């Protein structure tokens, strides 16, 4: 084997091993905090739960909304991890690979081509385009001569911008522009019973990623290394991309864009805990849930009785955190 | 003359230079030699005020390089760095004409045009002057940069590895031209050079550095001894006496 840049993840983790963040207790504490946020989210809102019919409303709006927060938050965070493993680049995520924009294009196409289709059909189409788009991104990466850490996300963002221009163009010429804005706002307010159940699919994706974690890590080291240890590189690559596409597609259809989530959560976790994928995954899930829930709560409280979509708050906070991460890299590199 | 007093520089925790003191008289060619990381380029860059020193003062022709007006300095001192990365697309002539900027602020006078012509001719670039830099070989581009420095027409010229990318013929020609510039045009040339034998053949003075310090200063005959060279380069070196200059041999020692 020629590559010794491929550091053993356990060795990297071991250097952090003495930290508080490595102890199992830490995970429980963090889990507790997240749970508190989630429960808190159940009881925040304009509607008075004590009033008549409060109980029903609780199950029609609050519970679905909170479940959607948990599912979408963990799914997008885990998607980030998978993409980062597959491209071996810590700045890649559905936001910076164009995956979300492709999913949006698929959703728009499904609305235009099959106006009467159900949510499930839309979701399938969105996932398919997200998959195709992410494969395009991967193919482009293969062709770029200079694959520095920073150039990869730039290419992804620009690809996303071009796709988004196509989407806008189609939307303008078919008079869907106004709808476009509301669809992709990334808001949990329209999530009610009957509109979120499909999100359980992403729970399955998360589970699959847990099981595949090691293979994804190996595949990230490149086809040569992967084949050397007897892994079918192409299959793992396709599988990983497909899982990201499904999770992104579904989340985009149900709640819209959740920018930067897949980027900042995995990076913050590996800053705190080192780079062991398997043991980091629970943290990443919890982190995603905690951040989305907090942003949603902020969005609901800041201007009662109106709501600020979660994507805007995530956009501001996410951009700030991301830039801090990049500048940190500049200092150390 | 060039005068360094107590000059020191670190990059973060890495100690790069000094403190060093150095006096170089006006005229002639001075070669800075030493192993990689000895601080040669750092020192040259500090003299050329492209890099600020952490401590100490540098004077060139009586001007303190950190406080003197940059434009005034540009008429006295020209510096060429090793790496020149830019995306601007210029012809050889345009590049060399930029050397006249300190004198004319871009509006070339007839005197400028003459200086540019001279510099092009001096480096055998006249036939290539309408070519774009990205169409040239590495060696031709290197000559174009040196021509730009010559067009700047300064008393002092600082060159960081001017022989980079040059083949044998052009390396010899480049050194011969720098020698001519020193002798005929009365320029003071300071250069960083890797090939110790080129230094011995063309320089008037050799400054040998290791680990950010100046170890030896002297004429080629004084510095080119087995003891000094073996010490500086940390490699066994023999010196053969050639009719015109001493010759260091280190490729394969018996």
């Amino acid at each position, binding site marked *: 084997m020629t590559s010794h840049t491929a550091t053993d993840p356990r060795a990297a983790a071991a250097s952090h091993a003495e930290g508080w963040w490595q102890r199992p207790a830490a995970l429980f504490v963090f889990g507790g905090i997240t749970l508190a946020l989630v429960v808190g989210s159940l009881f925040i809102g304009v509607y008075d739960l004590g009033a008549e019919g409060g109980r029903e409303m609780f199950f029609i709006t609050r519970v679905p909304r909170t479940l959607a927060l948990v599912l979408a938050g963990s799914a997008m965070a885990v998607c980030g991890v998978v993409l980062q493993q597959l491209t071996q680049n810590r700045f890649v995520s559905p936001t910076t690979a164009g995956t979300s924009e492709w999913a949006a294009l698929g959703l728009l196409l499904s609305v235009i081509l099959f106006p009467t289709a159900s949510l499930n059909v839309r979701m399938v189409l969105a996932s398919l385009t997200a998959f195709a788009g992410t494969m395009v991104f991967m193919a482009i990466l293969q062709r770029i001569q200079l694959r520095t850490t920073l150039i990869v996300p*730039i290419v992804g963002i620009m690809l996303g911008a071009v796709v988004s221009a196509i989407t806008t163009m189609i939307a303008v010429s078919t008079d869907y522009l106004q709808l476009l804005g509301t669809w992709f706002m990334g808001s949990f307010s329209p999530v009610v019973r009957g509109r979120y159940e499909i999100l359980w699919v992403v729970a399955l994706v998360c589970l699959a990623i847990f099981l595949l974690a090691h293979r994804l890590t190996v595949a990230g080291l490149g086809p040569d290394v992967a084949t050397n240890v007897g892994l079918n590189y192409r299959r793992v690559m396709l599988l990983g991309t497909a899982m990201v596409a499904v999770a992104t597609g579904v989340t985009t259809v149900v709640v819209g864009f959740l920018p930067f989530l897949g980027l900042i959560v995995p990076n913050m976790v590996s800053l705190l805990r080192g780079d062991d994928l398997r043991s980091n995954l629970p943290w990443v899930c919890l982190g995603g849930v905690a951040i989305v829930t907090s942003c949603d709560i902020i969005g609901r409280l800041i*201007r009662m009785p109106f709501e600020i979509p979660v994507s805007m708050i995530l956009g501001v906070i996410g951009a700030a955190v991301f830039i801090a991460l990049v500048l940190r890299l*500049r200092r150390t590199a | 003359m060039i005068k360094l007093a107590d000059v020191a520089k670190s990059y973060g925790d890495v100690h790069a230079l000094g403190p060093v003191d150095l006096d170089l008289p006006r005229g002639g060619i001075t070669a800075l030699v030493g192993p990689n990381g000895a601080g040669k380029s750092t020192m040259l860059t500090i003299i050329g005020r492209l890099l600020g020193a952490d401590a100490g003062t540098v004077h060139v022709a009586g001007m303190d390089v950190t406080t003197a007006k940059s434009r005034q300095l540009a008429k006295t001192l020209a510096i060429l*760095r090793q790496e020149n*990365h830019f995306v601007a697309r210029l012809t050889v*002539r345009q590049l060399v004409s930029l050397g006249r900027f300190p004198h004319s602020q871009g509006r070339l006078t007839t005197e400028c045009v003459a200086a540019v012509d001279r510099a092009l001719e001096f480096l055998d670039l006249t036939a290539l002057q309408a070519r774009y830099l990205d169409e040239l070989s590495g060696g031709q581009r290197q000559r174009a940069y040196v021509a730009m420095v010559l067009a700047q027409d300064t008393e002092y010229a600082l060159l960081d590895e001017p022989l980079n990318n040059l083949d044998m013929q052009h390396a010899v020609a480049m050194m011969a031209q720098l020698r001519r510039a020193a002798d005929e045009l009365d320029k003071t040339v300071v250069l960083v050079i890797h090939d110790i034998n080129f230094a011995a053949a063309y320089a008037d003075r050799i400054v040998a550095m290791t680990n950010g310090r100046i170890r030896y200063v002297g004429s080629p005959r004084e510095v080119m001894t087995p003891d000094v060279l073996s010490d500086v380069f940390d490699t066994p070196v023999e010196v053969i006496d050639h009719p015109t200059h001493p010759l260091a041999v280190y490729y394969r020692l018996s």
Partner: protein
Amino acid sequence: MTTTNSQPMVQSPAASDLSRGPAIPGPVPAHPPATVGRYWLRLTIVLLVAVLAAVLIVTYDNPAEPGSRGFWTIVNNRLTSVATITIVGICHGVATVAFHSVTNNRILTPSILGFDALYRAVQTALVFFLGAGAVAATNTVGHVVAQSLLMIAFATALYGWLFSGKRASLHVLLLVGVVLGMGFGSLATFMQRLLTPSEFDILTARLFATMSQSDSTYLPIGFAAVVGVGFVLWRRRHVLDVVSMGREVATGLGVRYQREVMLVLVMVAVLISVSTSLTGPMTFFGFLVAMLTYQLVGTSSHQWTLPMVAALSVATLLSAYFVLRHVFYAQGLISVIIELVGGLAFLVYLLRKGLR
């Protein structure tokens, strides 16, 4: 490499006779591109295209009776559009070329780095913190100037800080800039959500002008800004040449690098503010015309690139406007299609050349 590198180093007397070189016609002593004649021909053609497009936009298919009052109203409106597009085109083209030079790259554009998102964020913040009254009165010149100054100060501080880092890596800048742009976009939308509906109305009227319906009261200020900035940049075209060689060469030639870079960044901020306030953001247009300009001119000497890029952006934008609006009746798509073409060009460039 086909270059013959084997001329003898003998200084032949004939060499100086060749010094003006057969490849350079005419008596032009300074930086000529290899073929000056072709340059003027191309510039003339581009200008003719621009004029033709402008004339067509103004005269083509006017539904009203020639000479009637309606006729002149329509002509008047269309003239405003042409003026707006001209100013916006020059803004984007010149800003991009100047920006490329001071940042020593050919990929970043001020828009990709979020200058226009910054503009929107600053405008929104003004309404947010000072209330609608501050913006309602903006039609006075004083207010516009004050606002522009605020924007300029902010852009200078922010991007000056980004670009002044000693070992600032281009890739870091690019990534940080792009993300900053996204962040400012979110911030602006976020603050807009917090505005009262009436404040929001006033703001949208300011922010979302289009090419066919721009506020003509803003035109004179935009015009003045473009002329002013254009004059300053043209005067400094040789300095720009030197600055585009990077910090070390520029310093070596006696240019106060940091100061010049800052000055150009301020100019760029002015141009982008003007253009964004007139027609809203365009991310890839500047990249597109700058690329075309480098292809057409060959050299990157600003004496030649600046006039060409200004002419080319105006010609491109006017033609696109005419074709899309009057031939395809798709005026809503104008900026989208330009963006699409520009974005694709950007990606193709990135894939073919990589980043250097």
